[in-house]
């Protein structure tokens, strides 16, 4: 099993979710995050003072998948999330020891 984390542009969430469910991913967890990177922030004004907002809204997707699903899932995310413009985000893949479904106590790939 692997854990995939993807930081994407917020408005891409629906497309990515659909791409993942299309290949059979059944669950995922989503977090509102702020990203700092090559994409520069924007300037705002407040009562005459400018300030730069450097952290841009992004969505972080987390999903644990069976080993066999890892490559297709990454593939699906990459395809659905790409706009080609700076700030598209990253996908991280990392190891995981175990996963348990709270409702049933199933573990491992059964629990994904």
């Amino acid at each position, binding site marked *: 099993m692997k854990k995939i984390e993807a930081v994407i542009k*917020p*408005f891409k*969430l629906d497309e990515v979710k659909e791409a993942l469910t299309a290949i059979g991913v059944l669950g995922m967890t989503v977090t*509102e995050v702020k990203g700092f990177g090559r994409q520069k922030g*924007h*300037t*705002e*004004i*407040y009562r*005459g*003072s*400018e300030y*730069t*907002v450097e952290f841009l*809204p*992004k*969505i972080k997707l987390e999903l644990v998948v069976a080993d066999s699903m890892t490559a297709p899932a990454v593939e699906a995310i990459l395809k659905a999330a790409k706009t080609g413009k700076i700030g598209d985000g990253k996908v991280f893949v990392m190891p995981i020891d175990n996963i348990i479904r709270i409702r049933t106590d199933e573990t491992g790939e059964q629990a994904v």
Partner: protein
Amino acid sequence: MPDKRDTQYLTMKKLKLLLCTIALGLVPWLGMAADAPPPAVAETAAAVTNAVAAVAEAPAAPAADPAATLKIGMDTMWVLLCGALVFWMNAGFACVESGMCQQKNTANILAKNFVVFACASLSYYFIGWGLMFGDGSDWVGTEGIFMLKGEDNSPATGDAYKGVYSSINWTGVPLYAKFFFQLVFAGTAATIVSGAVAERIKFGSFVLFSFVLVAFMYPVTGHWIWGGGFLADMGFYDFAGSTVVHSMGGWAALAGVIVLGPRAGKYLANGKVHPFPGHSLALSTIGVFILWLGWFGFNPGSTMGVGDGSAMAHVFVTTNTAAVAGIISAMITAWLLLGKPDLSMILNGCLAGLVAITAPCAFVSVGASIVIGLIAGVLVVLSVLFFDKMKIDDPVGALSVHLANGVWGTLALGLFADAKISKAVSGFEVTGGMSQLMIQLKGVLAVAAFTFIISFIVWYVLKATIGIRVTAEEEQEGLDIGEHGNEAYPDFVINNK
């Protein structure tokens, strides 16, 4: 751009540019102000500063009779306080509309609602008032059209009146009281547009359109009906403006929505509607309460005088009853059609009832006002569904509220007006005949044709020149940052969708 400027706002060059602009702007006013004769000869001001109250001599006529002065004072108080309530509707529109839009466009909508009344105030003062109430042809006022500078001896009424704004000489209040009350109505018409074109229109273009609407379009159709124009001659009635204000603003909005197109992503390829829920139902609900309160100035204040109190009281009750009937029927309709009593529909039902009763409020019985409100509440729900089916994207329901029910209210007068309530006019229910209804229909169509066509042209010209729609990226990111550099709720974490 940001990095270049930084905190160096005030380069010498910009400062100069600014000062020149302002100077240029001021010179003419200074001139005007200097040579302007005070419009009301009797203008007085109790000097608060010390005991020697410095009151200019009151004009002979009214002062002769203390009861007459009392009456003028009382009517003026009524008109001004009702005018203040109508002014307050600006806050209501700002709340309703911003509450029904997405959080990322909040500052933009608030700014639009705020600035549009400023534009309306100035353009109605400089030109709109005169076109609407100045003596002239059946089509438009031609005398005293700039800055209320025509001859006028208000508060004299009827035959005693000498001046160029004779179509509004039936109310015995000072000219500035008449002006203020009419001004806040003009502001309302302009505000209606703002909600329908929200979440995608350029701020500057909207400001320009509002200016044109209040300076020219609103006064012209207003002249037809309230300024002694051809519809007034024909016997068309509209007590407080279902058509003069609401359907008029609705047609201008409809033209805007069509030229502008729907928000990106609203109508999906599969024929479904993807709603963008408003970011704060609390804000919207407060807004509707504000508007409802304001309507107690809008409708009863349109008596523009206290009289023996009975007309005011009657209008208070019919206005309230139509509103609550609209609430109840919109709630039931939503419950039946959509399965649940959706709050946003209940709110629209209330506004629908209020818009519909605006024309007939002084001419129909309380029983009739209930019927008018009940139908308005059903109509607004069906209308929202209809416009969505037509892919006409109106984020706040302005078309369903103001256009559909402005028309309905104007026609309802032709159905339910009863000379036992006000001698002026009777409708189908009393006479059994369709003549008044036909007159009302003609009025509706005349205003519709003029307003829709001119609006369409103005929107089109704006689109072809400076553009009316923000870029797709800006629409995506929100107009707050794009148009104003503002964030409405910087301390809250926002759902990114």
